């Protein structure tokens, strides 16, 4: 069914994990050999930059550009951190990757660490992904055994140690600077930027943070070359493939590797098998819980950064959560806001208290106790929270509220008018 090139999921057999033998048999660690034996760190960074790869952790920052800011040539202690927090609702792609093919990440980490000339990399894994942690532990041990990790790797004179940090819950640790605090063992509130981690990260030392999927792309870019990678995308400007995690009211809620730029309709209908129980499509979160809703009118949008931004939404993590026509969008938004309010780190006021205020207003409306003033209040809360918080968590929380207000204000009005939820069961 999926005829698109499978790069990251090349070795994927659902229910199985490819360890070193199968990984190598399928061409694993060739990118590493090439990168370390034939390329300089600068060349690797240049190649990644040329590939146009954008971060897969949600913000979509061009990876090569980020690396080029990193003081790779400075002889100071520096770190690479791999972000495997993946706690944004609707996002479960990194898990699939680690369940299927942990060495792919390890190879990417080694190549990236070489490009950035760091000798210590931390892989940060969320609490719920214990299987992934175990896979990684085994993969690290195997890679060490095979001479890909440790001292003087492949005779380059360069050393690398990979540390695994198992977290203990909380979405905010996905935010890169909070994650650094989490690894250091201090309270995981985000840090102010600037200074950016590239200047002052772990223990004040230059640190580069990338998402798991981002790093997993690196070996492929090195073996296949930037041109090949760019051509994997099917939109103008769309680059590479992307793991799409489908969820919600779809017939098939699985994770697929699809080209960047694939139309939303194809994702929903072909891969998701259409909306469950023959119901109509009402809306979806295109890229995780913090991305504003899209509606049926947007189904032909290519799933890529720019086209989605033009719709005032975001590509995010490409976790597509679909809602059928019977869904109460006020209820859905309330659920999302509750998540963000609960996961606020508590550092800044708009997030810590503003989100609970929004939650309360939505609860009132959803329960039929709301009034028109409160709909106006929602708008003005959104205006005053968006862009006003310390980190992007609260801003993300405003994504679904923004979608609700733009596309489903009528549902809010209906709740108020009826004095109950019109979709109530």
């Amino acid at each position: 069914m999926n005829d698109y090139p499978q790069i990251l999921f090349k070795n994927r057999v659902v229910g199985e994990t490819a360890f070193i033998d199968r990984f190598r048999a399928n061409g694993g660690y060739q990118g590493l050999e090439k990168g370390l034996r034939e390329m300089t760190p600068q060349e690797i960074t240049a190649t990644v930059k040329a590939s146009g790869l954008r971060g897969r952790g949600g913000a979509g920052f061009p990876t090569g550009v980020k690396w080029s800011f990193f003081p790779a040539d400075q002889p100071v202690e520096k770190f690479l951190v791999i972000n495997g927090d993946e706690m944004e609702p609707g996002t479960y792609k990194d898990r699939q990757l680690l369940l299927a093919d942990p060495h792919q990440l390890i190879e990417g980490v080694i190549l990236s660490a070489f490009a950035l000339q760091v000798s210590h990399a931390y892989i940060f894994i969320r609490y719920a992904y214990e299987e992934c942690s175990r896979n990684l532990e085994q993969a690290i041990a195997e890679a060490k055994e095979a001479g890909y990790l440790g001292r003087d790797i492949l005779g380059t004179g360069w050393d690398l140690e990979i540390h695994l940090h198992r977290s203990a819950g909380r979405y905010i640790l996905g935010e890169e600077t909070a994650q650094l605090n989490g690894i250091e063992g201090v309270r995981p509130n985000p840090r102010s930027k600037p200074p950016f981690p590239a200047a002052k990260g772990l223990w004040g030392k230059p640190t580069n943070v990338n998402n798991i999927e981002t790093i997993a792309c690196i070996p492929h870019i090195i073996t296949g070359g930037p041109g090949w990678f760019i051509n994997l995308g099917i939109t103008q400007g769309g680059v590479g493939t992307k793991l799409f995690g489908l969820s919600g009211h779809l017939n098939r809620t699985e994770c697929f590797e699809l080209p960047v730029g694939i139309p939303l309709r194809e994702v929903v209908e072909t891969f998701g098998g259409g909306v469950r129980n023959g119901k109509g499509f009402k809306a979806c979160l295109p890229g995780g819980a913090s991305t504003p809703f899209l509606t049926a009118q947007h189904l032909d949008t290519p799933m890529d950064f720019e086209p989605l931004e033009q719709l005032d939404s975001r590509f995010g993590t490409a976790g597509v959560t679909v809602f059928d026509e019977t869904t109460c969008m006020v209820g859905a938004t309330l659920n999302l806001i509750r998540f963000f309010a609960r996961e606020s780190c508590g550092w800044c006021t708009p997030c810590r208290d503003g989100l609970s205020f929004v939650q309360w207003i939505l609860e009132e409306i959803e329960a039929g106790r709301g009034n028109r003033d409160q709909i106006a209040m929602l708008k003005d809360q959104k205006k005053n929270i968006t862009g006003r918080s310390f980190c992007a968590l609260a801003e993300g929380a405003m994504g679904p509220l923004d979608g609700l207000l733009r596309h489903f204000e009528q549902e809010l009005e209906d709740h108020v008018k009826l004095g109950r939820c019109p979709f109530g069961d």
Partner: protein
Amino acid sequence: MPTLTIDNKSITVPDGTNVLEAAQRLGIVIPHFCYHEALGAVGACRLCAMMFEEGPVKGLQMACMVTAQDGMQISTLHPEAQELRSHVIEWMMLNHPHDCPVCDEGGECQLQDMTIAGGHGRRRYAGKKRTWINQDLGPFVVQEMNRCIQCYRCVRTYQDYCGGDDFGVMGSRNRLFFGRFQPGKLESPFSGNLVDVCPTGVFTDKTFRFKTRYWDIEEAPAVCPHCSLGCTVIPGARYRELQRVRAGVNRQTNGFFICDRSRFGYGYANHRERIRQPNCQGAATSWREALEHLKERLGKVVNEYGPLSVAIVGSPRSSLECQALLREWTREHGYRPPLFEIDNRRDRTARILAAGLGKQARSMAEIADSDCLVMLGSDPLNEAPLLALAIRQAVRNGCHVTCLDPRAVKLPCAASHLPVQPEQLLPAINGLVANRFEEFERQDQLFLEGAAERLGRAERPVLVGGGDLLGPEGTEALLKAARSLNAGLFVTLGGPNSYGGALLSEDGPDSEEMIEAALEGEIKALFCIEADPLTEGPARSARALGQLELLVVCDHMVNRTARSADIFLPTTAPPEAAGTYINNEGRMLPFGGAYAPGLPLRDIGEGGHPPRTFSNITTGGEPRPAWAILATLLQRPLDFDSIHHGLESDPHFAGLGLLSPGGEGRRVTDAGMLPPAAQPEFPHSAPEGSLPLLVVEALFGTEPLSSLSPALEPVIPEAAVQLHPTTAARLGISDGETVSLRTELEHLRLTARTEAEMVPGLLVAYRLRGTPLELLPVGKITPCLLEKGGNDA
């Protein structure tokens, strides 16, 4: 130096100033909570929003997080900025209880102010509020967590600034608890600062609870009288009762904070045993009669024995005005030159410092800015607590601290400590100059060479000394060292105005000479002005005082000498009158009186009635400032200002008249004089098997005024003798055991405490007031015998 425009007003600010600070300089006060000058900006509360209209930064920003840059055009009145601020206040108020009527913070609550300023007046949130169970945080601070607005100031003060590790923030999201792991006393000696930094009523002063509304309190900026650092404090009184002390701001000395001794040690002023009426031979009398009686008896002594039979002991607790009049009085009548410190060691130390400090003087602000500190015989947390905070700030900025001390010096920051014998301090100082440490063991030599090397490399090195342990010789050596190493010098002294006394003593005689004269019978009348020779003086003082025909004591506290006075004249306590102190770096710091003395109403109110006789004197209002008593004796007008300004005729004090209470003060201009050569000390043959005992100050329980404060009772340490575990083992003594300690004159029973970080072979005890330990001179070695048990005591 960027120039920017805020609300159409232009200002040029130093590099690195943030926009919130720049606005404050223009007098534009924007609501803010998380920013605090001492703590810096963290951008958490999101209240200080301003609109950046033109220039390098655009849009709505948190002013505290933006560094001022050239060409910025900023509006604080932009509707979007105002709108956000009102929202932030509304969010903060979601869970805040409406308990202002019963909240101690009412009236001085920044949240009240900011709520009004933020334009939030009507509560739109009608959901449940989160509530907390409070913790008991000990005798000083009350917690009322429901009032918390999560500005994080408390934890940033307690942990980051003060280095405490038993108070912090727990939980996450909108369930944040600021407190301890378990209920219990806050361990930091700076815990009271929570009261000042908390912008609302979460942390309030337990000793002040439910006493007074802010607008009813009488306050004036003052200088803390409990050590020599000269921290600015603001004592507050109501109904003639000193009810609290809060921190004042002095960027050169204490910055924004004070220690708990300063804050909670105020009870001496309200002490029930304070004698508030003049008395002769123990019988209360009027001022007029007392002064007449005094003149008559003094006249008799002078007639019979001549003016040199009159001696005066002043004190480092007295104001400079009092000290200066004292000197004038002795000069006018030809009495013996006054002493300003009966403790000879402290007296000589202060005079040597005042004579030599000069350009080497450093302030606490400069210590906080130092890149290399070497501490010699200094235990700041016990001797001068705020110094420890200055040192901590230096360390936070990358300074290296070396500490040479016999004691187990604890600091709220990292330091390398080398335990040395008290008599090794001098060779260590000299060694730092010559970079030779032959007298030390190999291991210690390496340590000291490292310290010397760092000192040599440093750009802003400061030598920090403890006057008590260094003594005159050590201080002299340290002065020389500072000069030759081109390092700053900071030496703590015995009392709040030791430096003033030292300057005024000039090269006058020291207390040895005076005591000898008294023992010889040359002195017949002794005036003690806020001094207590029977406690602070050498053991011979008792015999010397026994020879007198007249003992006059002017003081506000009852002490040994006051109890045996022929004539007692009550003086005001420091917060009750204006004056000037000169701190240990030579900084002149004037203060104003916060309130007039009088018997606290709450004491009178206890069932009894105020006296029904009509009088224009407040009940218990007789105490007079010591300077006023002297002015009366000198027949000068009772005009503080003229006396204060008159001090400027002494070139040391040039510029004093321009200073105002609560300001930063300024250093004295001229050096003091060296004391006369010291009498050679008789080598005291230590008895067989004796151990050296070093008596030192403690944070609580040893400083004379605060030790009288009931609020501090729960924190006064046990009477103990500390010794190194190896010493204890040699004596067969274990930790916690009761031991008997015998000096030449005293026999005490104390608890033995082993302390691994102190130097072996030495005994250390705190000079606890109200115990026989208070009679042992501080900083000096007393030989003593230590035995197990001590049941025969």
